[in-house]
């Protein structure tokens, strides 16, 4: 239920009622599902329902002067359950967030730094752009970098920042490279030319930053010839499918999981190793709720021999966010200062309750967040957090 993009481009809070989204907002029945569905709803002075009512009454300025919207982790839970199908996460909340941040006396420093880094280095951790492709040297299979070999390619793999720099993300990358090459996919990466796709900037209320990154990446991408883009980061997927399209860039972008699913018949015979794990799967907000890929990751997991899938209490549309979205990745200190429990801590307890050996994920934010949460939970049984691609790769080894 992604909104008609062109219809909302340029819409501001002042003009929202002239848009089709504004008409939808007028139909709000104040049922409170959004607030109830929100993982941090109870900490907000103005949860989404109240924001809508304040907007209807012209009292929206009051909302900006609170930090309510700082607590939105962009998990799409309110939007998916809204009985009026109001595009809360996609449209309304973003507009409110931007105003909130503009009026904020002090931006939480962790977030401030991440945004700055993104602007300066094209990645939120502040790593050198020249080291972005360093992980390639550790890959067991050759990986083509387009700037070195600009021939047309079938699949352009947009690696994104966390996979490119974070040691655990690099593990995922090596696994993906191995799988792609085993499937004979003609692929290449942008290497050091790549910068963060900008979704984090967008959803952490910095549309200026987001636009700068969008412009940059669009220019780089237009240099090369390719048929489709894949990425292992659902946030990048969202950025391409949602924001880039508004700027007229409409490539065919797929997440690595549905992409690999297309090759399932070819892949299955390669999964010779029996893993013998019980696995629970955490639905990424962007991949699940926003892009409706609920069953593909599960099918992929089930096609690995010896994997027993156990569901957590909250799953699929009802999944709980890891807390990393919408800038939450860089707000843990701030959340703590507000006496808010980290969502990854809440979620990890549900995972632990399943008794699973492995928590399978599909989003690069999740591995570090859940690994950290596991330490905090002090869980004595050993539970591993792994990207689905790592598991697939593991099953391919003889």
């Amino acid at each position, binding site marked *: 239920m992604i909104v008609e993009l062109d219809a909302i481009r340029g819409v501001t809070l002042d003009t929202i009622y002239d848009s089709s989204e504004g008409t939808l907002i007028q139909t709000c029945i104040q049922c409170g*599902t959004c607030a109830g569905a929100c993982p941090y709803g109870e900490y907000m002075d103005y949860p989404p329902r109240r924001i809508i009512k304040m907007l209807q009454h012209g009292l929206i300025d009051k909302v900006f002067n609170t930090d309510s919207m700082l607590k939105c982790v962009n998990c799409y839970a309110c939007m998916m359950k809204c009985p009026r199908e109001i595009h809360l996460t996609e449209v309304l909340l973003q507009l409110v967030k931007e105003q909130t941040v503009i009026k904020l006396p002090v931006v939480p420093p962790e977030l401030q730094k991440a945004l700055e880094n993104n602007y300066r280095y094209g990645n939120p951790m502040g790593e050198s752009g020249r080291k972005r492709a360093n992980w390639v040297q550790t890959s067991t299979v050759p990986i083509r970098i387009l700037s070195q070999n600009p021939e047309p390619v079938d699949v352009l793999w947009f690696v994104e920042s966390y996979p490119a720099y974070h040691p655990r993300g690099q593990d995922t990358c090596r696994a993906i490279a191995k799988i792609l090459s085993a499937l004979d996919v003609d692929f290449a990466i942008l290497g050091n030319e790549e910068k963060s796709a900008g979704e984090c900037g967008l959803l952490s209320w910095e549309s200026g930053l987001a636009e700068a990154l969008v412009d940059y990446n669009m220019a780089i991408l237009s240099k090369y010839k390719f048929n489709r883009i894949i990425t292992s980061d659902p946030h990048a997927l969202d950025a391409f499918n949602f924001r880039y399209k508004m700027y007229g860039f409409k490539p065919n972008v797929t997440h690595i999981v549905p992409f690999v699913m297309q090759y399932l018949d070819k892949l299955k015979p390669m999964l010779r190793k029996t893993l013998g794990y019980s696995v629970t799967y955490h639905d990424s907000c962007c991949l699940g709720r926003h892009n409706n890929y609920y069953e593909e990751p599960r099918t992929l997991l089930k096609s690995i021999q010896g994997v027993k899938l156990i569901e957590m209490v909250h799953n699929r549309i009802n999944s709980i966010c890891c807390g990393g979205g919408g800038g939450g990745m860089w707000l843990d200190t701030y959340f703590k200062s507000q006496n808010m429990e980290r969502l990854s801590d809440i979620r990890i307890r549900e995972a632990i309750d399943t008794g699973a050996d492995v928590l399978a994920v599909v989003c690069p934010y999740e591995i570090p967040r859940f690994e950290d949460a596991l330490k905090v939970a002090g869980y004595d049984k050993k539970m591993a957090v792994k990207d689905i691609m790592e598991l697939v790769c593991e099953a391919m080894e003889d």
Partner: protein
Amino acid sequence: MSSTNGKIKIGFYICHCGTNIAGIIDVQKVVDYAATLPNVVVSKHYKYMCSDPGQEMIQKDIKDNELNRVVVAACSPLLHERTFRNATSQAGLNQFYFQMVNTREQNAWVHLDPEASTDKAMDLVRSAVNRVAFHKPLEKKTVPIKPDVLVVGGGIAGIHASLTLANAGKKVYLVERDPTIGGHMAMFDKTFPTLDCAACILTPKMSAVKNHPNITMWTYSEVVSVDGYVGNFQVKVKRKPRYIIDDLCVGCLDCIEACVYKEPRFFDEFNQGLSKRKPVYMPFPQATPQLVVIDPETCIWFKTGKCKQTCVEVCDRKAVDLNQQPTYKEIEVGTIIVATGFQPFDAKKVYYYGYGTYPNVYTALEVERLINASGPTSGEVVMRDGSRPKSIAIVHCVGSRDKNTNLWCSRVCCLYSLKLAHLLKEHTHANIYNFYIDIRTPGKMMDEFYTRISEEGVKFIRGRVADIYPDTNDEEHRRLIVKAEDTLISEIIKVPVDMVVLSTGLVPRDDAQDVRRMLNISCSTEGFFIERHPKLAPVNTFTDGIFLAGCCQGPKDIPDTVAQAGAAAAEALALIDLGYIELEPNTAFIVEEECSGCKSCVPLCPYTAISYDEVKKKASINEALCKGCGTCVASCPSGSIKQNLFEDEEIYSEIDGILNYKMEEALC
């Protein structure tokens, strides 16, 4: 153009309809314009043309000005054409010397620009003035109405309609798909707001149906085809094999006892699966007729061909017949009442409410059975896990008012939720929480009922439930947390409860589209059958002689269903007692000397009204069979078939009028 030989004198009238029309269309301008059109001798506007003074004005003008044609621009002809035709004929003019212009529904109500609207009105007035000059005096044809009635569906709507008709001395065929009549109402425990026992008020009516000499009740049967038209429907009914000979079974239930399955083990439809039944079963103790039925889906004989057939052996009346085949009955009826009912919304579709995942999440219909004294637990509220709830959440609007499922308000859920709150409280003394968006209690004694339930201490939380999940603090994980925003205090609340009741909405039956096609009636977009007019013809359909009763037309409660069933019966009675129906004379006819006998038209008629005369070597149309679609007219290659009310000249003259086309232009 013989019709224009005599002097044509047209009276033109435009209705203000209060401000409905005059608010956007400049009626004075239209009147002035119409006065300039050929043959128009009177041109007037009036506040309400359909009112008595409006009609009298037309009649007076017909007399005073010797008008011989009338054009009225007002609402849709589907609404008031009949009114003005009557007015015309009461003034001594043939009623078909009238033409109506749709100025309200298809003009004033759908356009915003007064100038464009007025232009459109003038175009269509010119078109009607052109057309009416070609009108011919016609007579309505009458068709006799067969006095028998078919009632489809044996719920409370079908039961009430059947009894009403049968008591009036009409012969009724009541066809019910299930093995027993009674429908959903038979499953209910009590009814709101009076808290009457549903069985106490329904079962006497069920046995009255069974025993009524004028009612032929066919249960476990389905209507498979309907042909014909008002007054004369040919209906084919399939009687599914019950594997029990109706006339021999006395309902002793010995066969059930004797079944090779010692314990009941199959899903019991009547109790919503909360109990089990055997392959041979009686749906419920008061089932009407009191006949057992063998379900071939679960009976081992039908599945494997191997069984000791203890049921056959035990029946000393030899009523069990495992070789029974479906039989087909063909009946002729004059009218049909459709009372096929609804089905409850499938609660699994709201995934996050956990129905089907957590055993203690129930649907409202399940709870009806659970608290019913003759239900699976004999009225004890014992949950699937054997425990008794101390706290219960009732979740309103499940599958209603939600774009993700169904947009409509199901109308009865608030009140049945209140009723269930009362009954559950009475049975369990539990804490009861109603999670609602709005409480809707329209109707007599309904809001008083709400007050009463509030007084009983039932808690009301205004907020739609966002999440239901097991309480990790509860050792056995049985308790559920219901999470919602209490929107009146702006707090997110998490209420731990033992039991959750989902107040599921009412949705059209899965096969409503098939029924609609078979009967040639219409559905609204959501799938409920659509009435001819929401206010003025609420039980009629667009097909004459077919009427609607009950929830197949839209969600409604029992009083409204019964009222509507009575209304449908009355509409049928009105037709039957009149004995005939007047039909529009829009039939087609062939001018014999013009027909070349090319036979192209013969296969086009769906009603086989066109036949080819081998002696004359011409085709001819049987007026009695013609329904007046005009397909043969449009297809006759030599233009030799004509249709009353829709002759070629009449339609060409409308086109000319709309486009303001002058004949002299043809010379270019």
